[in-house]
């Protein structure tokens, strides 16, 4: 599906993540900034990828600012951001 506009979901509180998504330049770019990057960096990227592919998103910039969110939280924030970004005004 096509990202129509920039959108964000989540917060910068501990245990949460803020995920921002916007239309890309023809491919998927994910940038992860996490307080637990050393321990969970790869798992975070994998979780975000999973949600993006569920919604068949292949062209977007995604920025994950993670404050130690567990996987179910990350995926929820990602899904919310996608749904918001897919909505036409």
């Amino acid at each position, binding site marked *: 599906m096509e990202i129509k506009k920039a959108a964000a979901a989540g917060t910068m509180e501990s245990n949460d993540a803020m995920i921002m998504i916007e239309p890309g330049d023809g491919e998927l770019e994910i940038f992860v900034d996490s307080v*637990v990057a050393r321990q969970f960096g790869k798992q975070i990227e994998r979780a975000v990828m999973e949600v993006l592919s569920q919604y068949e998103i292949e062209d977007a910039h995604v920025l994950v600012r993670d404050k*130690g969110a567990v996987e179910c939280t990350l995926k929820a924030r990602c899904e919310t951001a996608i749904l918001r970004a897919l909505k036409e005004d």
Partner: protein
Amino acid sequence: MNKRAESLGAAMKKAGIQNGMTISFHHHLRNGDYVMNMVLDEAAKMGIKDLTVQASSVFDVHQPIIEHIRNGVVTGIETNYMGAKVGKAISEGILDRPVRFRSHGGRPDAIEKGRVKIDIAFVAAPCADASGNANGIYGPSACGSLGYACADAKYAKTTIVVTDYLAEYPLSPASIEETDVDYVVVVDKIGDAAGIVSGTTQITRDPVGLKIAETAARVIEHSGYLADGFSFQTGAGGASLAVTKYLKPIMKRKNVSGSFGLGGITGYMVDMLREGYFKKLMDVQCFDLKAVESLKTNPDHIEVSASRYASPGVISACVDHLDAVILGATQIDTDFNVNVHTDSNGYIMGGSGGHSDTAAGAKLSIIVAPLFRARLPIIVDRALCVSTPGNTVDVLVTQRGIAVNPAREALRKRLTDACLPVYDIGELKEMAEKITGKPDDIELGERIAAEVEYRDGSIIDKIRCVK
């Protein structure tokens, strides 16, 4: 004789400060301390190099030491605790010689046995007379007990008392006595009162912390150690202090008359003394104004030296009489080894303090910690640093359950019989990882940033630099 020196620099010259010396400091002024920074600045001005700082603790306020390390003024640090700001620089490899960590009990033992030789001890004193009798209970920078300074004053080749509140001779009580003091310097301010002690120490409001504390109190209740004569130590932070909130009604209900409270003392322990839950407080460090006031006025509130508090090398120390101690952890491994030196990324941000001493001395040592902080599980296969060996740790209390050291089978049975949620530590680990996922192992550098000396003098672990 006249011991007064007109300035800090003059006192340092009189003491014969030279390249390569070991100079010592206590940490009773905690994050409000000015004295270590003043001394190092002065030494830098005098062109002194290659100093070893022997400090009972290094706090964030001591960040200027990083610059002195860069400039070669300081080339060694030995301490019992290091705050995160200096710790980060050390973990990044700023110091060639590894930091030597000790415990609050191990340090005075090393000094008294001569394993550590101090050339000049700088004793920050909230109140002193011109002959060097000093205490921590009077003056604008009052901090209470001066317990961590005693061995330094006694065993250093030269002892300089630094005060901002000069009293008439003879000052009493004298935590530090004139017999051990060579020089006295009066400065404008030895510290920032706001950073020395807090007004009141508040119990955590975090519901998970409270849940852990409540469970820990029930562990004590059913451990078999809660009887007349009960003695107790707990820290000032997080869930630790909150344990007293839940222990009080249990002691009341069971009509237990405690004997003493030990350690760093908070207003909460002072209340328990006043209300008769304990007969004495033995105080090596005051955490708040209420504790300072109580030490000053209540004869049952006793100042103890670090050596008497926790040394393994004396005939007996307070920790050897301790029934229960509540301690924290940044990590605990499945063998119950506890890390309080580094964070989960390997950066130094703490130290033993009295952790390993009280764990070894107390009949019941309880670690209180949440199962995970943010996404990081507390229980790991292998602690990044063994600060306190697992064979001295008895119980881990988390918000979802308790684990008992397998070596303490009788204790485990008592707690299980009391219907407390007892699990195998591996089960608790799985419970956490089910929620957080399993963290990847982190990669550390080859270089050694610090060595951890256990209270018996052996090296228990080495802390690597962070890549």
